[in-house]
């Protein structure tokens, strides 16, 4: 994910301080690299102008694939491949196909979305992503700037952190 980046980051003690700081950073046109929090903070997506996740659309498509696989699969098996008269019902027993079709829809949607989520976030079993500070998953809220994108304006960033009440400011190299 990162190859030799130098990151300046500030830690805040409260999510409300974090939200005001992000708003101020936007006003000052400071290029935020990323924001890290110990839990999802409401309003943060808005102030960071994060685009809506397309996972929902993905989930819909995966579900549709599951539905078609289940329904068309059973249709082919029971009308073309080996049709058997079961209980006097027609070969294409649509009401009987519904439960399995539904389960396949849910199965594909859930697995598809979950695997997609981990892939697009760059996560997976045994994958290690660099951690800026171990207290972020505890009780610290972090705004991080990539030094390269600041074009030498590190003073402006340090002033920003000081004025918004950051508890700590540090630098780290990945």
């Amino acid at each position, binding site marked *: 994910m990162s190859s030799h980046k130098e990151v300046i980051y500030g830690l805040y003690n409260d999510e409300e301080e974090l939200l005001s700081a992000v708003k101020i950073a936007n006003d000052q046109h400071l290029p935020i690299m990323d924001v890290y929090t110990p839990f999802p903070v409401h309003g943060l997506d808005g102030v960071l102008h994060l685009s809506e996740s397309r996972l929902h659309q993905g989930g819909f498509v995966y579900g549709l694939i599951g539905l078609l696989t289940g329904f068309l699969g059973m249709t082919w098996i029971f009308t073309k491949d080996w049709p058997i008269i079961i209980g006097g019902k027609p070969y294409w*027993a649509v009401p009987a196909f519904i439960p399995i079709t539904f389960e396949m829809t849910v199965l594909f949607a859930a697995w598809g979305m979950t695997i997609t989520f981990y892939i697009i976030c760059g996560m997976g079993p045994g994958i290690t992503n660099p951690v800026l500070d171990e207290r972020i998953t505890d009780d610290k809220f972090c705004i991080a700037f990539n030094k390269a994108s600041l074009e030498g304006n590190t003073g402006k960033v340090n002033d920003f952190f000081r004025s918004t009440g950051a508890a700590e400011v540090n630098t780290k190299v990945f």
Partner: protein
Amino acid sequence: MSVVVSPIREPLIRGSKTYHQITEDLCAATERAPSLAWVLAFIVAGGALSFGMFCIIWTIWVGIGSWNLNRTIGWGWDITNFVWWIGIGHAGTLISAILLLFRQKWRTGVNRAAEAMTIFAVICAALFPGIHVGRMWVVYFFFPYPNTRGPLWPNFNSPLLWDLFAISTYFSVSLLFWYTGLVPDFATVRDRAKGFRKKLYNFLSFGWTGSAKHWQRWEALCLVLAGISTPLVLSVHTIVSFDFATSVIPGWHTTIFPPYFVAGAIFSGFAMVQTLMLMTRKVLKLEDYITLEHIESMNKVILLTGTIVGVAYLTELFIAWYSGYVYEQFAFFNRALGPYWWAYFGMMTCNVLSPQIFWIKKFRRSIYWTFLLSIFVNIGMWFERFVIIATTLARDYLPSSWSLYSPSWVEIGIFIGTLGIFFTFYLIFVRLAPVVAIAEIKHILKAAGDQYVDKNNAHAKQAALHPPVHHETAEHH
């Protein structure tokens, strides 16, 4: 960014916790050596599990004849236990998924443990369809895969196969939902750990960093998983009820089974959650996170679903009379007055009568009565499945075929074994993972922590007097 919270809501997190204290309290059980209580419980559960494994191996080695199933009672303790365990599993999904959709903040105190309970209960349940077939070594025949037997396909029109798909889907989707929620919490434990534990939790936390974009996607994923898990849980127990309802047996062939089974599943599931939570909060000292509010809310659900189950029983009796169909009428005479009358009596007392005490607030908020009731409800629900299955099969259409059933030691041993599996897994879970959802508790701290009650009340009054103009993005939950 104060939250508007109704002033009648009681706090859900007590003790004026800070975010750091929450981390400390909830990671503690995974970081210290197991207590004596844990070790003793593990020995007992492990012993039960071992005996159960022995009985299962005996069943395979000696044959299904070591069970007392015979004409006409082809299903006895095996399917009773299967439906009982699946029913218990439903509470976890309900708490996680349905309460998320209904924006009930109190779910965060119990959802992690309840979801874990679901997974372990489904494992116990799934054992029975596997081992009750007789030729367990070809049980893969059930799955629709291209084979050299024709290719021979399973019967997609049979509820028994719908069960296979439903329960496999339910197990894997519940596992995904549970694990997705666990990833940020494993990251919390990882960042506090050293040495081997750090390596372990590093593996388990999948590289979670806490990035805002990742949290956004995480919430989107959890919401959709909740959205599809809700109809899933309703469909799973409906399909289980179809195992009976699609037959022609009097007392089974009735359209009330789907809603009746689903309500009964939620009923017994919540009772098991109460049993586990009351013990967990005491032993792990988590009374500040699993408060009387949580317990009372779950008791209200138990009261509601227990009453629905009671109404279903009365409906069955009414319809049996109203239909004028002698076989249906006999089925219920037999249940109440026949050779298994004691099971029917136990079922009625435990399921219909006993939860009614939760109308009284004093009992709803009493730990002692809640624990007692939760055991009664689970026993009652076991009797319900036994009454439906064994009693009905013992006395169906043809009197010359009537027979009786009582379990062999092997069947009893397998049931004890599943209790052992369940509690062993739960005890391992308690040591390995945070029992309460850390990130979600922190997320509701400002809305539901007891130190914020006055502030939120004041804010609610302000909001009522001066309704705000909507200018920020809507809240997710």
